[in-house]
C-alpha cells in the first residue's frame, strides 16, 4: 500500500502557525530562563509580539485573498474572509488578555498563584511566595488557547473541530485553577468547568460520530450533501445534529448548557475571566456559524426549534438571575448568558446577514467585557491593617467609586452601557445589526423578547452605575476599598474604552469590513 504525500498550502496557515509556534517556544523559555522576573518579561513580549504579528499576517492575507478563499489540508480547513475576520478578533482579545495576565498591583502582586501544585494555606505555599515563584506558564497556555480558537473558527471537518475544541479548552481549564487569592473558589470553578466542558465535548464527539455514520463523511460540505440525499436515516442525522449543536452551545454558555459559566467566571483569576469571556464566546459563535451554515443548513427548519428555545431561555434566565446577584463577576457571568441568547437571536433561521453581524457583535461585546474585567482588577479590598487584599467584587463595595476614581468608574459605566446597548456605544450597534439580521428571516417574536430582555437587563447595569456615582461611600468604610494602579491594566482599560466609543460613534468602516467577511467559501448559504 502506498501513501500519497498530501499537498499542504502552508501560507494560509501562517497566523495559526505563528501563534502555536510561539506557544511551543514559550514552553522552551520556561525551562531555559531561570529567574521568574526575566521569564515573565520575555514571555509577555513573546506573546504580544507573536499575537500582533499573527494579526498582521492575517490582515495581509485578507487584503491579498485570492477570490473567496483557500481550501487547506484537503478540505479540513478553509481560510476565507469569515475565518480571517474571526481570527483577527480573537487575536486582538488574546493580545489584550496577555497584557492583563502580566498586570501587577502596586505592591507587585500578580493575579496568579506562585505555585499551582501546592495546597492553599500550607507552609509550601508561603515558601513559594517568599521565594518569588511565578506561574509564568500562563502565557504559553494562553497562546495555545488562542491558537486552538483560531483553528476552531476555520476548521471544516467535524473531527478536526473536536481536536481544536480540546486544544483551546484544556489550557483554559488549567488557567481557571490558578488564582492567587480565594484558591478554593478557583479550584472549585476549574473542577466544574472541566467536568462540564469534558461532558460537552463528549456530546459533540458522539454527535459527530452519528453524523459520520449517517452521511459517510465528517467534512462539512459532504455532511450537508449527505443530509440532502440520504433517506431513511433521519433519527441518526437529527440526533447527531442536536448533539453537535449542544456541544457548541455549551461553549457559548447558553441555557440549559450554562451552569459552568457563573462558577468558572467567579472562580477564575480576573484576567483569565476577561480573556475567556471574550475569546471563548467569539470562537464558539464562529464555529456555530460555520457548522450551521456549511454542514447543517439542510436542517434549518428542524434546528430552528432548538435555537429559538435556547435563545429565549438564555435571555430570560440570564437577565432574571443577574438581577438578584450581589457579586459583580457573577452578575457579569449571568449577563454573558443573556448575551449568548442575543447571539442566538441573530442565528435563528440562519440568515445570511448573521455572518457579518455576529463578528461585529462579538467584537463590541468582547472589548467591553475585557475592559469591565480589567476595571475589576483595579478595585481592591483593604484589610484592617491597611494591606491591600484581593479584588472587591461585592456590589456594596463599589458604592461611591465615582468619588474615589472618576475615570475608572466612568470607564466601567461606559462598558455597562455598552452591555445594555445604549446608543453611541458599540453594544448598541452590535445589537442593532444582530437583531436586524434576525428580522430579515422574520424572527420578530424572538427580537421582541430580546428587546424586552435588553430593557430589563439595563436595570442592573444602571443600578451599578447609580451605586458608583450617586451613592456616597458608606460611613466607616472609607478605607475598606483601595483603587489600585497597574499601568498594564490601565492600558487595557484605555484601549477598550477607545474601541467601544469608536465602534459606537463611527461603526461604518468596521461594519463594511465585516460585510466583506460575510461570505463563506463553501456551503449552502452566504
Amino acid at each position, binding site marked *: 500500500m502506498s501513501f500519497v504525500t498530501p499537498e499542504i498550502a502552508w501560507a494560509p496557515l501562517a497566523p495559526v502557525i505563528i501563534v502555536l509556534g510561539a506557544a511551543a517556544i514559550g514552553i522552551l523559555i520556561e525551562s531555559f530562563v531561570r529567574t521568574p522576573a526575566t521569564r515573565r518579561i520575555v514571555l509577555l513580549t513573546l506573546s504580544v509580539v507573536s499575537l500582533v504579528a499573527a494579526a498582521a499576517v492575517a490582515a495581509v492575507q485578507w487584503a491579498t485573498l485570492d477570490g473567496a478563499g483557500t481550501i487547506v489540508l484537503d478540505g479540513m480547513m478553509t481560510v476565507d474572509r469569515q475565518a480571517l475576520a474571526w481570527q483577527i478578533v480573537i487575536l486582538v482579545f488574546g493580545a489584550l488578555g496577555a497584557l492583563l495576565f502580566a498586570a501587577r498591583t502596586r505592591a507587585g502582586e500578580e493575579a496568579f498563584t506562585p505555585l*499551582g*501544585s*501546592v*495546597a*492553599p494555606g500550607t507552609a509550601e505555599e508561603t515558601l513559594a511566595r517568599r521565594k518569588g515563584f511565578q506561574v509564568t506558564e500562563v502565557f504559553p497556555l494562553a497562546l495555545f488557547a488562542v491558537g486552538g480558537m483560531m483553528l476552531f473558527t476555520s476548521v471544516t471537518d467535524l*473531527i478536526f473541530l*473536536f*481536536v481544536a475544541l*480540546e486544544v483551546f479548552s*484544556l489550557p483554559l*481549564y*488549567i488557567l481557571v*485553577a490558578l488564582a492567587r487569592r480565594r*484558591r*478554593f*473558589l478557583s*479550584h*472549585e*470553578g*476549574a*473542577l*466544574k468547568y*472541566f*467536568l462540564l466542558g*469534558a*461532558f460537552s*465535548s*463528549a*456530546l459533540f*464527539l*458522539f454527535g*459527530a*460520530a*452519528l453524523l*459520520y*455514520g449517517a452521511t*459517510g*463523511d*465528517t467534512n462539512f460540505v459532504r455532511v450537508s450533501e449527505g443530509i440532502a440525499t440520504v433517506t431513511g436515516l433521519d433519527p441518526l442525522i437529527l440526533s447527531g445534529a442536536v448533539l453537535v449543536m449542544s456541544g457548541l452551545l455549551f461553549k457559548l454558555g447558553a441555557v440549559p448548557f450554562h451552569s459552568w459559566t*457563573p*462558577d468558572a467566571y*467567579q*472562580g477564575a483569576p480576573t484576567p483569565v475571566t476577561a480573556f475567556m469571556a471574550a475569546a471563548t464566546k467569539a470562537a464558539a459563535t464562529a464555529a456555530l456559524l460555520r457548522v450551521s451554515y456549511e454542514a447543517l443548513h439542510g436542517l434549518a427548519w428542524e434546528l430552528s426549534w432548538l435555537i429559538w428555545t435556547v435563545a429565549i431561555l438564555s435571555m430570560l434566565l440570564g437577565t432574571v*438571575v443577574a438581577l*438578584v*446577584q450581589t*457579586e459583580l463577576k*457573577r452578575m457579569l457571568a449571568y449577563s454573558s448568558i443573556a448575551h449568548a441568547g442575543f447571539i442566538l437571536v441573530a442565528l435563528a433561521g440562519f440568515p445570511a446577514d448573521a455572518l457579518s453581524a455576529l463578528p461585529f457583535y462579538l467584537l463590541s461585546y468582547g472589548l467591553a467585557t475585557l475592559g469591565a474585567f480589567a476595571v475589576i482588577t483595579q478595585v481592591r479590598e483593604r484589610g484592617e491593617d491597611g494591606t491591600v487584599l484581593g479584588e472587591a467584587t461585592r456590589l456594596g463595595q463599589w458604592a461611591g467609586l465615582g468619588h474615589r476614581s472618576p475615570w475608572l468608574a466612568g470607564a466601567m459605566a461606559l462598558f455597562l452601557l455598552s452591555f445594555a446597548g445604549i446608543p453611541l456605544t458599540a453594544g448598541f450597534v452590535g445589537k442593532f445589526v444582530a437583531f436586524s439580521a434576525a428580522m430579515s428571516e422574520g424572527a420578530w417574536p424572538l427580537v421582541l423578547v430580546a428587546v424586552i430582555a435588553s430593557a430589563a437587563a439595563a436595570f442592573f447595569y444602571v443600578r451599578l452605575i447609580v451605586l458608583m456615582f450617586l451613592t456616597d461611600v458608606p460611613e466607616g468604610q472609607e478605607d475598606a476599598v483601595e483603587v489600585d494602579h497597574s499601568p498594564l491594566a490601565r492600558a487595557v482599560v484605555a484601549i477598550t474604552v477607545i474601541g467601544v466609543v469608536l465602534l459606537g460613534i463611527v461603526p461604518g468602516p468596521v461594519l463594511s469590513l465585516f460585510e466583506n467577511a460575510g461570505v463563506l467559501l463553501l456551503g449552502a448559504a452566504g
Partner: protein
Amino acid sequence: MDPINFVILAAILFAIGAAAVLLRRNAIVAFMGVELMLNASNLALVAFSRIHGEIDGQVMAFFVMVVAAAEVVVGLAIIIAVFRARQTISLDEPAELKG
C-alpha cells in the same frame, strides 16, 4: 454479526457514561463517565467505518484517543489539586460558589 449492533452498544455505553457524569457525586467517577462517553464515540466511529467499508472512522478514533489522553492529564491534575486542598473530591462538598 451485523455491525449496527456495535452502534447500539455504543449508544448504550454513551448513555451510561452520561448518567454517571450527571448523577454520581464523586469527581473521579464522574470523570470516568466522561471517558466512557468518549470511548463509546470511538466504538461508534469504528463501527460506522466498518459499515461504510473505509478506514476514515478508524483513523479518527486514534485522534480521539490522543485527545482523551491529554484530557485525562489535565482533569486528574485539577482533581488532585482539589483533593490536596480539601481532602475530598466529592462534588457536593465544595459549595462556595452558589446562586
